[in-house]
């Protein structure tokens, strides 16, 4: 039995003052290392909020979040930042690349901000990662000058820069056409196979979710179904 990377215990999250909206209403979830998981559910069901909490980008209103067995609720900002950088990688729907930088610099950045400067090893790892996602010829271009599919592949390479245990992907194919969506999705699967990095992929598309090992269905702030994939 592999060690859980991330455990959520009775997580709730409320928004608003006055009129309070319970976006998450008690989530229990465990992510094991190497798992390839899809999270699916209608808009407003709490997928992104849950993902933000899992990514330590947001704090739960109540409940407990353990990363590799360590509680995180009481941690200082600097410790959270460190933990996030070491353990987690992010892929966002709108790719959220740093538009002031080239593809290569974007991929170097996570390790760079952790270390405080760019080193040769950071650079060569970033080059390997970009090569791996098929962008060897585009790495010195500013990311604004790449196509949507290319940008999302840069985002994938960047999410892997710090060798994270778990990559959280918020609709990584949401802005892409079917062909590009397949390319990116297959890339994620290949990386999962090759490196054992766990993925948690939020998606709208049943088609893609069905290709995952495990599917979590969200509805109204709760996990409604927690099914291993039919495959």
């Amino acid at each position, binding site marked *: 039995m592999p060690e859980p990377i991330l455990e959520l215990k009775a997580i709730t999250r409320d928004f608003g003052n006055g009129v309070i909206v319970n976006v998450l209403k008690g989530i229990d979830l465990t992510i094991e290392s190497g798992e390839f998981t899809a999270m699916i559910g209608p808009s407003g069901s709490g997928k992104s909020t849950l993902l933000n909490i899992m990514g330590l*980008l947001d704090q739960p209103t109540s409940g407990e979040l353990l990363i590799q067995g360590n509680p995180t609720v009481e941690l200082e900002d*600097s410790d959270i930042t460190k933990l*996030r950088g070491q353990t987690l990688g992010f892929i966002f729907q709108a790719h959220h690349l740093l538009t*002031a930088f080239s593809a290569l610099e974007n991929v170097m950045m996570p390790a760079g901000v952790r270390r405080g400067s760019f080193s040769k090893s950071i650079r060569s790892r970033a080059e390997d990662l970009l090569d791996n996602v098929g962008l060897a010829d585009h790495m010195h271009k500013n990311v604004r000058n790449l196509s949507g599919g290319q940008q999302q592949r840069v985002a994938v390479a960047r999410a892997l820069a*710090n060798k994270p245990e778990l990559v959280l992907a918020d609709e990584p194919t949401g802005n892409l056409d079917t062909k590009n969506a397949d390319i990116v999705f297959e890339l994620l699967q290949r990386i999962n196979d090759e490196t054992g990095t766990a993925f948690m992929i939020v998606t709208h598309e049943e088609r893609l979710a069905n290709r995952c090992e495990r599917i979590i269905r969200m509805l109204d702030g709760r996990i409604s179904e927690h099914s291993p994939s039919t495959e």
Partner: protein
Amino acid sequence: MKSIEFFIAYRFLKEGKAQSLFIFGGAAVGVAVIVFLTSLIMGLQSSIIDQTLGNQADIFVEPPTQEESSPIYQPQPNEVVFSRVEPRPQRVEDIDRWEQLIDDITADPDVTNVSPVVTGSSVAPRGPVTNPVQLFGVDPPRYQQIIDIEGRLLRGEFAVGNNGAVIGYELAQELDVDVGDRFRILDTLGVSRSFLVRGVFDLGFGTPNQTWIFLGIRDAQTMLDMGANINRIDVNVIDLFDADQVSARLSGRTEMEVSSWQEVNADLLLALRTQSASTFLIAFFVALSVALGIASVLIVTVVQKRGQVGVLRAMGASMRTVLRVFLIQGAAVGLIGSIFGTILGTGLAMGFNRLFRDPEGEIIFPIEPSVEIFIGACLLATFTGLLAAVAPARRAARLDPAEAIKNA
């Protein structure tokens, strides 16, 4: 400070090109104004001080003025006394044993040069016309250290003694004499003696050029009936602006009446100080408006870069890193703006020197932007930029990463 923070700051500034150009331009113009204004005022002030002190020692040591003699008859309160007070005939007070005094003054560590002077007024007749003149008996090598006469000779040399005289060029015109000619000066008894013009000088303005005559110490002593005495010692000090302290010290030590150039020119100094204060105020408000400009542009930048800041935070950049990225941007705007500003300010100063000349084509007063002004302006601008960036940087550092990404 980490190198990656500089890199991110640099790229953020580079990404917002137009915005960065405006903010750099604003800082540069502000610094240019400060550099130009400060150079102008400092040039003006140093040229005023040069002009004043170019013809004047830093410190004068003179014999104490004698107290007014008490009246022979002291009237009662209800008495009316008709009296006429005859003023004492003008007589120059002397310093005897002045060699000893000069040694004493020279011993002061702040004193650089000391020169004995015999001075008094007289007249130089030319036919029926008499020209009032001021005689100065000096020892040229020593006096040259106090005031640069040689450098301001139009003709001849600074050589006196043995009936040689060096006179102002306007006086030379009045007397219709030139180097090699003779003219006459009356002594205290009204007897005229003849002197040979050895040099003609131009000290820059009126009175010295119209009335001053340099003679040898002996000749002056004879003309003014002073025996072997002198009546003034001119002193220069290392630092011009320490003159009043040195003066006070000498006054305590010598029982002479000692006055510094600051005391002699008190009104002038007050005017200069007021001018400096107003310059400082203008510079302060220019710096303030530059700071507000930088701050407002950086706040806009924070809003624009919100998404990227959020992503950086999600990648593991700490709040401190984000804070520094924006502080660096502010400081860089100040520093780089100030480098262009000093160049612009120097250009303005040179243009001013070229444009504003007196009718003879001479620079009215040279504006000299100095290295001190450059460094001062750069430091001021960098600090201002840094200070201006504090509020925007804090705002950026406090962005909630999740919110920032969502709203980007």
